[in-house]
């Protein structure tokens, strides 16, 4: 269980994340939504220890994440950030194998290979596993990085805008895979999303941030309605139900 308690992060005088408390429900997809600069990525970075909080704490199984040993933590929680610039030339398979590092320390055992193969299959990367990352398209690259965190086999998978630069087909593909990870393997996924419709259709819970503050936190059905969305985005967004999915039609709304 991940618990966030009164977390605050300041850059200069500005509170990027202000006094946020929430619990991540295990076995769900939780989406972080909100306008640009709301502090979603910052919050995710603090949960995953990439960034230190100024005040407050993040607890994983009752223990402050800062007190966890780095390699033990890496077996429980994985994070994928937006930009993944690398200086080295790696093949897809080599990159995904890095996901096993917390277990293998660089020497892959048979079990490690099994997880790598599984992750490659999950992301449909088998055919291009020997291609170099820098030769791939944006979508393939993103899938390769997600395969790496899948191979890491953590209970918690945190993804910072994984749909950035992806077309509709690949976005849907990735969201479906995340759904499968939760439903079949019992993982917990926390994801920062910009497109509220992906959040609405695929996530179990939604956490909405605005100006660093938590404004909404609850099951998707309670958040995706015009009143709540108005509070989050300052926009009148009609919500229509199609095949049981709540779709936000924000394209023509007045701010």
């Amino acid at each position, binding site marked *: 269980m991940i618990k966030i308690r009164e977390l605050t992060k300041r850059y200069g005088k500005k509170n990027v994340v202000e006094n946020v408390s929430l619990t991540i429900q295990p076995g769900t997809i939780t989406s972080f939504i909100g306008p640009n600069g709301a502090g979603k990525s910052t919050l995710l970075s603090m949960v995953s220890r990439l960034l230190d909080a100024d005040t407050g704490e993040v607890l994983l199984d009752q223990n402050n994440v800062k007190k966890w040993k780095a390699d*033990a933590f890496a077996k429980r929680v*994985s994070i*994928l*950030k937006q930009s*993944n610039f690398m*200086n080295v030339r*790696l093949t897809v398979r080599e990159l995904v194998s*890095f996901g096993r590092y*917390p277990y293998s320390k*660089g020497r892959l055992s048979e079990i490690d290979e099994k997880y790598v193969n599984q992750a490659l299959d999950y992301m449909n990367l088998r055919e291009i596993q020997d291609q170099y990352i820098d030769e791939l398209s944006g979508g393939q690259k993103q899938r390769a990085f997600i395969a790496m965190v899948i191979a890491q086999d953590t209970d918690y998978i945190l993804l910072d805008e994984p749909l950035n630069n992806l077309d509709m087909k690949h976005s849907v593909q990735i969201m479906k895979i995340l759904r499968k990870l939760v439903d079949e393997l019992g993982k917990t996924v926390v994801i920062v999303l910009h497109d509220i419709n992906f959040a609405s259709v695929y996530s179990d819970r939604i956490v909405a941030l605005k100006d660093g503050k938590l404004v909404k936190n609850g099951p998707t059905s309670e958040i995706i309605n015009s009143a709540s969305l108005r509070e989050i985005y300052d926009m009148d967004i009609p919500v229509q139900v199609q095949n049981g999915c709540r779709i936000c039609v924000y394209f023509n709304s007045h701010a």
Partner: protein
Amino acid sequence: MRKNSIKLLSLLVLAIICILLYAFYDIKGGFDYAFPRRVVKIAAMVVTGIAISYATVVFQTITQNRILTPSVMGMDSMYGVVQTLIYFFAGSMSIWVVNKYLNFGAAILAMVLFALILYRFLFRSDKHPIYLLLLIGMIIGTLLGSLVTFLQVLIDPVEYLGLQSMLFASFTKVKVELLYIAMVILAASFIYGFQIMGKLDVMSLGRENAMNLGINYDRMVMNILILSSVLIATSTALVGPITFFGLIVANLSYQFLVTYKHSILILGASLISIIALVGGQFLVEHVLELRTTLSVIINFIGGVYFIYLLLRESRATR
């Protein structure tokens, strides 16, 4: 993988050929006289080559770039500053010069401190573009260089001659007693290095990915900075500054052995540097008949290569 072992093996053979050639070719004036001297020079070149290669490759991994090296960032200039300050304030007859160990220790300490302060400031956030870092490094280098020149103008001319010989890279007048210390330092750094090879591989994925995979990134960066500055300081104190050497050998190694594995990259860079130094010194002594020095050639070739890399990089980022 197989291909890389063949490549490494051929580099090894070439390095051994260079060493044998340098050790035994055209020995004049008595084997007993010339041979031990040549062995000392070879040992100095091997130690220097490995130290610079090792330091440069790990430095470039933690700074996430392939153009900056500790030398380019001003480590060499710092060596000049230390020696000039010693000559200026204490003089060539002082214990700081006469006692080789003390001089060596002071140089290493100062350079490591300089590196830590500089890199702490520069690389704490990885937001700086590489050109800014390069610019800062060059400005610091120029600043320190001007400071050195200023002090050198004021210094006694006889003292200056002594100082000058300290500031030019040379394999021909290696201090044997320092060679042993350098070997010990190199051995110790390799014992540490064996434990972190896997971590270095992971760190080449960048800060966030490495932290995700359970690397204590910021602490590792600090450790590796100290490691690389100790190594560069050691090699500089041993033979003098060869600014662009690390840059050449590290990049040749990346190009020749396309891999992310640091054990292979460092081994490759070390072998390349042994070939370049021992083979180069052989050419300087027997073909060019000492009409120039190896460090001049290395800095010339390295400088050209450096410009080539800069141009290539700027095209790639556009």
